């Protein structure tokens, strides 16, 4: 892959199309950060493909000055699979939402994650259907009142991180739309990961589900409501004077108060390690929900395993080495044949 000329900037990744999300939508911040990170990745612009499904988030490709494919509802991971399996040298990004990715497209997301193609999947989770004007989504809280659930939703919600871990994803992270620094860091990590990188981005819908993630978007409450996951560091959260830690015993997490001068490890606080082969630890983290627990933000799991397309290319190389490059005439004449004379 050739180096990107140093002159490329955020502007080079910005298309000429007017952005048409609602004012205040979390998507603006995500778009700006993705456009900021793109020139830093060292991938030529023509080798970048953004693929999306249907929904507010799925308009994303139109605003990126790269190759872009706005496909059909829920199926973006499948189109991306075809693209990446066909052309492993391309950098393929999937943009989806909680409805697109986890409801109509749940099956494809599941199977794409387990196949481990070297894709980046960004799932914008605002816990509501925006484009169809405000119905509850598969991640909406139980009891949420919407146009389609005037008495409150009776569906139990699905957690995207648990879903990805359950599907065997090799890289699973969570970040926040307005936390530019963290979001950029996670985008870099996702791109660097060889295999499917799944990133849940907590995103605000100011029209139909405003302030759903306010506690972690707002800097003043983030320390208390969020749990920063950092490799090799103990699971500690809370402001000075109100520090707490997460202890995990027999797979069950609990919150433990911590004095400011206490050594968290000595107090039995878990030390974060994203590289466990088993997803059990990451799963325990994924069960942490408000208000009992802080929301973990960061990389839950990052393990290496061969990607689907590398295994597929390996089979092609192996077949060519063993049988030689395919010869059509020889194929047509293979097996039992006979000749009828003139």
């Amino acid at each position, binding site marked *: 892959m050739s180096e990107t000329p140093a002159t490329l900037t955020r502007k080079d990744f910005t298309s000429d199309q007017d952005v048409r999300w609602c004012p205040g939508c979390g998507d603006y911040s995500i778009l700006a950060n993705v456009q900021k990170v793109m020139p830093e990745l060292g991938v030529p612009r023509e080798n970048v493909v953004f693929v999306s499904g249907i929904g507010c988030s799925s308009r994303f490709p139109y605003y990126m000055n790269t190759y872009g494919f706005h496909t059909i509802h829920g199926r973006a991971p*499948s*189109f991306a699979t*075809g693209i990446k399996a*066909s052309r492993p040298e391309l950098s393929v990004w999937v943009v989806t939402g909680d409805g697109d990715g986890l409801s109509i497209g749940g099956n494809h997301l599941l*199977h794409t994650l387990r196949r481990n193609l070297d894709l980046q999947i960004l799932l914008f989770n605002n816990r509501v259907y925006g484009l169809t004007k405000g119905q509850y989504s598969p991640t909406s809280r139980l009891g949420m009142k919407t146009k389609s659930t005037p008495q409150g939703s009776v569906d139990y919600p699905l957690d995207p991180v648990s879903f990805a871990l359950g599907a065997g994803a090799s890289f699973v992270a969570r970040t926040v739309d307005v936390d530019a620094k963290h979001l950029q860091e996670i985008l870099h990590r996702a791109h660097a990961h060889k295999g499917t990188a799944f990133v849940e981005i907590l995103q605000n819908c100011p029209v139909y589900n405003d302030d759903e993630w306010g506690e972690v978007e707002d800097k003043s409450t983030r320390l208390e409501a969020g749990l920063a996951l950092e490799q090799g560091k103990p699971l500690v959260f809370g402001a000075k004077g109100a520090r707490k830690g997460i202890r995990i015993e027999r797979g069950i997490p609990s919150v433990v108060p911590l004095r400011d001068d206490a050594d968290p490890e000595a107090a039995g606080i878990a030390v974060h390690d994203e590289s466990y082969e088993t997803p059990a630890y990451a799963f325990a983290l994924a069960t942490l929900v408000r208000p009992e627990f802080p929301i973990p933000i960061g990389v839950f799991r990052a393990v290496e395993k061969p990607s689907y397309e590398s295994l597929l290319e390996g089979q*092609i190389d192996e077949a060519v080495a063993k049988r030689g490059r395919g010869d*059509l005439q020889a194929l047509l004449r293979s097996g039992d044949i006979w000749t009828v004379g003139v």
Partner: protein
Amino acid sequence: MSQKRVEEVDRVAIRFTGDSGDGMQLTGTKFTETTALAGNDLSTFPDFPAEIRAPAGTLAGVSGFQIHFSSVHIRTPADQPDVLVALNPAALRANLGDLRPKGMLIVNSDAFVDRNLKLAGYHADPLPALRDRYTVVDIPLTKLNREALKDLNLSQREADRSKNFFALGVMYWLYHRDLKPTLEWIDQKFTGDVREANRRVLLAGHAFAETTELFPVSYIVPRAKIEPGTYRNITGNQALAWGIVAAGVQLQRPVFLGAYPITPASDILHELARYRHFGVKTFQAEDEIAAVSAAVGASYAGLLGVCTTSGPGFVLKQEALNLAVMVELPLVVVDVQRAGPSTGMPTKVEQGDLLLALFGRNSDSPMPVIAAATPGDCFYSALEAFRLAVKYMTPVVLLSDGFLANSAEPWRIPEVETLPRALVQVATPAGDEPFQPYLRNPDTLARGWAVPGTPGLEHRVGGLEKEEVTGNISYAPSNHERMTRLRAEKVARMAQDIPPVEVNGSQRGGELLVVGWGGTYGAITSAVEEARTEGFDVSSIHLRHLNPFPHNLGEVLRGFRRVLVPELNLGQLAMLLRAEFLVDAESLSKVQGQPFKVGEIKAKIYELVGARTPQVARS
């Protein structure tokens, strides 16, 4: 060894029948391969239940394989077998009605015991009553087979499994087939006692037939006088898979198959999965939707995207196909049609998806549709589907069916350099000007294939309506109408780029034209040619292109006083012809999960041309 009589015949049809666990498909396939090597023309019809192992001895579990072979040119597996081999009473009961009067009935007499008779629904042994109507040959197959294997270390169950090869040995003697190809195949396929058992019973069956008084006569079917060339035996699914491989070679682009297992299309996936050394990528998806979506993704990325399915899967693919229509990407979708609606009869043939292919998507969604006529034609149809797809930047539907898929015929192997290539409509960067993804070739109206990885062609496409030329999202009323008409016009223009229909028969019109499409080619053509030989003014055409129709079709139709459209559905092409050309096309429908018999079409021809005493004649 007593000297037995040898007779020469020009054609024979044999049907092997038994339980679905009796190996009838294998027996038929081996007989077919040997017959192909003997230089006969042939046509086969495997007919089996969807259940892998239906309850033994029942009618539901009967599996059959018919082969018609000859020294003259034939096009169908024959209406009525001359010989019926029935390994149990259920097989007899399910197939006897088709056996030619005075035909030969070979049964495994050991299987005609109370239990089996009851399972088949017989109250008494049916064989005594049949001896006047057929030449009944009772062979104690189970006993003879066990006898031949008694010193081998096989359980009785294992020994019994080879009795189909005993029967095959008998048939090889009866029709002077060479044992060698099958013996070689056994040596390659099996080891140890199983190899020995199969070899031994094949030879034992042959020797038995030679020495027994049951067969006073054996038959020779001379080599067929067919076009010179090198031939092989081929089924529709194999030919279709090879056509896809050939398209990759001819268009110099790797093939990407997205597929989900479905009867009767799965064999195409199996076959293509073996050709990684051609760069063929096969992707077994989690469902039909993912299969087509991945294939469209591959096409977007510059490969030859293709998917293979059958009716229920084809329905699921329609939304993704409509996206391919909208973004104007090349794609071939193969529908190996089977009897429906819904799950229907998965292993049985029907032509019920024509209207679905044409109109199964939301809004005006024009898509070229072509259909293969014979097993060997599946190869060329695949090449034609890709030619249209890449030249016009469009998804193309290729219709096959459950009969073509599994049926076999001798196929003249083409020279690769004679195979068609196609113009690939590639986009090129416009220098400093912004790239216009919906700029069109003025002749074909195709937009350029703008493949990721090409600097300067970065662009966005999607299912939203496009502005003409720029491809930007547009809700402008007049633009939508223009784009809708452009999409239709692009497909309509292909009519000038496909061969005109050729009339088989009266070139200047006449009394009756029989119009067919797809896998009914053999039966229709045979019926029409036989009727012409008898002096009737009847002609036929067979449509490969169903959308658009060949440009001369209307003119040809209007040249005939009556138009008959035989179809394995309730009249779908007939409806299209009536709508498009305002001709009084008459439908001949059959929806039994079985192909047309020549006699059925002939009877209708007789009726229409006013022949007296229409009779179902033997082909």
